[in-house]
């Protein structure tokens, strides 16, 4: 048998602990991605001067590997007197990376919103902010929900990059256990299965949620 199930079961508590750290990184990064990415998406969708610095930010983040961004944060921020624990450094780097992608997803969603509905909102006396809040964002999020869902799933996998700066998440746990047992196949199959189970469950939850938020566009 290639997989040593006895070893695998003995490693489950350690994997569960590592997975909880991975999910914490992914969840917190997701929050940063949404809270930074959504306003950035709104800014880039409209013709304001702020869209230029945001576009530069998106260009730099999308044009460089996330690993380089994590190393950059690890080595450059201390020289500026900013010190973060590796866990928070990973959360910030992955979250800010995600924000760039989320902003572009939201921008495309906003640009796909029916103009007629926006004109109706204006004609009815809604302010610009009210129009964004009550009509543009709900539609943009509905339109872009599958893409945003993919981004969340990616965050779970991207959290493995935190292992490179010593955060004891799932991948790092696998690396350390490998040193103790040398059964590489069992360990990495176990680590891979953990990621697969979590991302599959999340995909299912996102699918259910997508059906719910699309309920109003389906004829009843």
């Amino acid at each position, binding site marked *: 048998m290639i997989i040593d199930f006895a070893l695998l079961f003995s490693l489950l508590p350690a994997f569960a602990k590592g997975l909880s750290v991975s999910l914490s990184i992914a969840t917190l990064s997701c929050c940063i991605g949404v809270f930074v990415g959504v306003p950035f998406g709104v800014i880039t969708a409209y013709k304001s001067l702020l869209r230029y610095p945001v576009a530069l930010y998106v260009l730099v983040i999308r044009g460089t590997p996330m690993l380089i961004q994590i190393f950059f944060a690890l080595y450059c921020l201390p020289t500026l007197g900013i010190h973060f624990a590796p866990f928070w450094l990973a959360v910030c780097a992955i979250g800010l990376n995600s924000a760039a992608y989320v902003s572009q997803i939201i921008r495309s969603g906003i640009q796909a919103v*029916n103009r*007629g*509905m926006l*004109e*109706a*909102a*204006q*004609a*009815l*006396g*809604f302010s610009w902010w*009210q129009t964004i809040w*009550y*009509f543009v964002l*709900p*539609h943009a999020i*509905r339109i872009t929900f599958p893409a945003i869902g993919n981004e969340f799933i990616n965050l779970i996998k991207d959290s493995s990059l935190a292992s490179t700066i010593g955060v004891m998440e799932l991948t790092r746990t696998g690396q350390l256990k490998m040193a103790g047992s040398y059964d590489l196949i069992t360990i990495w199959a176990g680590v891979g299965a953990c990621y697969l189970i979590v991302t599959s469950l999340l995909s299912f939850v996102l699918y259910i949620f997508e059906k719910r938020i699309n*309920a*109003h*566009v*389906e*004829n*009843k």
Partner: protein
Amino acid sequence: MLKINKLCKKFNGKIVLDSISLNVKPGTIAVLLGPSGVGKSTLLRILNNLEIPDSGTIMLDGQALDLKIVNRSHIVGMVFQQFNLFENLTVEDNIILPLEKTTNISHEEAVKIARLLLEHYGLADKASSYPASLSGGQKQRLAIARAVALKPKIICFDEPTSALDPLLTNHVAASIQELAHKQFIVLVATHDTTLAQRLQSTIYLMKSGSIIASVDSKDFYTNRANYPEVDQFLAGFAQEVDGKNNLR
């Protein structure tokens, strides 16, 4: 009284409205009749601050109408060609949200007004449905209810029959006529001569951004002798419509 005086609008150098002037009293209907592209909708869009006129004045009850505040002050209401309902809100919330967020009306009061209007327009049983589940006629009645809820002085209809089954023309005419009876100033932009004739209105015949004649709707088909320009207009109109149909 609504007085539009010498209103002009160009898009990329092309004249869309060429010195349009017309007066509409409360309780009356002005129908802007003409084929596509003659500026009917642009005129309504200007009244709703969705386009900015190049020149001309708009007066309401003797005072200049400030188009910048026309939306917030709910002086003008609009029923759009494609209805433009809020698809993410229920039928009831399409009326409640504008009342609640753009006026000082409380939520309870807004709900009361919405229910009365839905009852009046035969949509009470659809209150918790979403607009996607409504028929074309129901969508239009909801769009009218949404506009009426804010109690504007002027209500504009942009091509009210174009997205509907022709059999519904009588129902649309009745809904519009009812608003005139309630002393609203009603403007209707349409290329539907049947609708124009069925409304008790003044019909303004439009061509190339100008009003070329005005005629009382009851004389539109019956008293042509006094309106030779109507025959001329309808002949040209029929040619344009035929030309467009041939292109399709």
